[in-house]
């Protein structure tokens, strides 16, 4: 679109303009830089309006009204030219289409050097064009984002050539209408050229000017980097927010959160974290269930089925690992079962399912089984029951001991009493861990007792069973309550369930 040399020329023009204006840091890296000498090239394409972000990041206090008359059109044209390169640089033009600021700051530019008029395409033409281009480019999508030059954004260099390219690409921010007389008063160079129209453009840039221009570039570069970092931060935050919203949605749809506002504040960060992880675990579990079903239906090879079954088992191992971590930070959250659905909570045993109950269900659902396997299942159930009884009795003793500590005797030393009680409470974590250990061992033993295909069916049954419990919880949570109120204290739970719209069933029981 723009000839390479053409770009440079515009840039030179713009730089000169800026130099003339003595604008400082606001102009930043793009404009007003090392270029010296009058431009001898006149042709400019109408460039797209660059981003004036550099202005935004510049110190707003410097955007003081200049008060001097100047040629808005000329300046704008130069700015536009720079803006083209700037767009190349970051490829983020969509972000840079803020219009109001640039317009406001443009007006603050000091008087335009006469020389620019002579060397530019012509005031009238540029004025008209730049206005149009300014307006049109506000919504122009980024172009030449793949320009090889766009990589150079971050290296300030005193080399003029380098600067040219650098400026080209970074210039979008540079459109430094933010330059102001204020800035100029801060200029390092003692002799500012703002006042005289045409006074500076005819002199070659001296050392001080060069230094100032270099500083401008540096400042602009830093602004750009800051903005880039900020934008990246925003985007990653946005992604996180989306993820959190999805997790929340998922958790709500599974009836994991109590809708009782009063205890909303009780969810600790450890508990909340576990809830989120559990939500993701459930999603993955659904996916693995799909794999299991496919494997069974497609009658895949034994080796492949073994892999799928092992994958499902490992997924449960992962759950127990998550729970052990959560138990350290918030054991009560696990024990009170708020992380699980209401129906599952009904059958909760020390923070999870009761293995012997699961095996009882499986023995019925997995028929027909070989004699040996049935015996193995009954044996497993028996062992599990013994272990469960032992743990339950241990927990009872803990409870009793705690009651004795809290209730016992006159409160001579309340603090000591609490310390002892806290020590006893700490044992809860051990019980939840042992209960999870029991659950984990039971699942592994099931796999050992059954053939690969039986194990696959077994896991499908388990997955569906808990899926239905969760579905039941959702249905229950969403049942119409008005019907309860219309009754005079009569127990209508079964009819209430029947009154739920049948379509709900379809949503919740897809595998039936």
């Amino acid at each position, binding site marked *: 679109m723009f000839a390479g040399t053409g770009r440079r020329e515009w840039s030179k023009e713009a730089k000169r303009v800026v130099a003339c204006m003595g604008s400082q840091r606001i102009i930043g890296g793009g404009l007003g830089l090392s270029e010296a000498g009058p431009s001898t090239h006149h042709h400019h394409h109408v460039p797209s309006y660059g981003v004036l972000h550099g202005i935004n990041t510049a110190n707003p206090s410097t955007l003081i009204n200049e008060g001097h008359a100047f040629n808005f059109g000329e300046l704008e044209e130069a700015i536009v030219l720079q803006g083209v390169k700037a767009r190349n640089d970051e490829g983020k033009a969509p972000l840079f289409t803020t219009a109001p600021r640039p317009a406001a700051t443009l007006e603050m530019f000091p008087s335009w050097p006469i020389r620019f008029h002579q060397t530019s395409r012509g005031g009238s033409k540029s004025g008209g064009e730049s206005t149009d281009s300014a307006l049109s480019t506000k919504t122009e999508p980024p172009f030449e984002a793949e320009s090889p030059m766009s990589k150079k954004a971050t290296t300030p260099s005193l080399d003029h050539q380098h600067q040219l390219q650098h400026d080209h690409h970074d210039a979008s921010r540079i459109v430094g209408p933010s330059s102001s007389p204020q800035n100029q008063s801060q200029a390092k160079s003692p002799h500012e050229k703002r006042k005289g129209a045409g006074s500076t453009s005819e002199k070659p840039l001296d050392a001080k000017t060069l230094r100032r221009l270099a500083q401008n570039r540096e400042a602009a570069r830093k602004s750009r980097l800051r903005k880039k970092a900020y934008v990246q931060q925003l985007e990653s935050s946005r992604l996180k927010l989306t993820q959190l919203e999805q997790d929340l949605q998922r958790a709500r749809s599974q009836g994991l959160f109590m809708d009782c506002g009063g205890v909303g504040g009780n969810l600790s960060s450890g508990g909340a974290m576990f809830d989120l992880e559990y939500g993701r675990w459930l999603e993955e579990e659904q996916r693995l269930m799909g794999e299991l079903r496919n494997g069974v239906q497609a009658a895949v090879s034994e080796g492949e089925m073994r892999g799928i079954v092992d994958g499902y088992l490992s997924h449960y191992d992962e759950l127990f690992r998550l729970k052990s971590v959560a138990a350290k930070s918030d054991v009560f959250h696990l024990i009170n079962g708020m992380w699980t659905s209401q129906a599952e909570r009904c059958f909760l045993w020390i923070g999870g399912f009761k293995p012997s109950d699961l095996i009882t269900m499986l023995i019925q659902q997995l028929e027909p089984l070989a004699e040996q396997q049935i015996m193995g299942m009954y044996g497993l159930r028996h062992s599990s029951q013994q272990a469960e*009884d032992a743990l339950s009795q*241990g927990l009872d003793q803990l409870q009793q001991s705690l009651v004795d500590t809290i209730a016992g005797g006159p409160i001579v030393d309340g603090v000591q009493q609490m310390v002892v009680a806290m020590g006893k409470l700490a*044992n809860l974590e051990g019980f939840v861990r*042992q209960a999870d250990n029991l659950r984990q*061992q*039971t699942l592994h*033993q099931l796999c050992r007792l059954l053939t690969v295909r039986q194990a696959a069916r077994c896991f499908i049954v388990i997955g569906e069973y808990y899926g239905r419990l969760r579905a039941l919880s959702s249905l229950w949570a969403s049942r119409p309550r008005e019907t309860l109120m219309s009754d005079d204290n009569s127990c209508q739970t079964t009819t209430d369930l029947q009154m739920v719209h049948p379509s709900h069933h379809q949503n919740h029981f897809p595998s039936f």
Partner: protein
Amino acid sequence: MVGVGVDPLERIERLASENAVVIFSISSCCMCHAIKRLFCGMGVNPAVHELDEDPLGKDLERALIRLLGTSSVVPVVFIGGKLIGTMDRVMACHINGTLVPLLKEAGALWL
């Protein structure tokens, strides 16, 4: 039993070999209570050594920690003089069906 001069580890080994099932416990520990209930529920009569009731209990506890490599050391179970481990291991053995044969072998259970 023996005087202070005996190495705690030796003492542990000796105690462990005196009965078919030996549990090192602490009287106030609820997990120890649970493991005792487990064995009793299976019909086993374990010999229990409460470390907090033993004058040299602290030494024994330290020796057990070294033996097991964990800091939460009780309850610890020995069957037939061999170290089985803490609650974790005992439950795993029970579920995978290896505990009962061990008990029978040690003479703690007979059907």
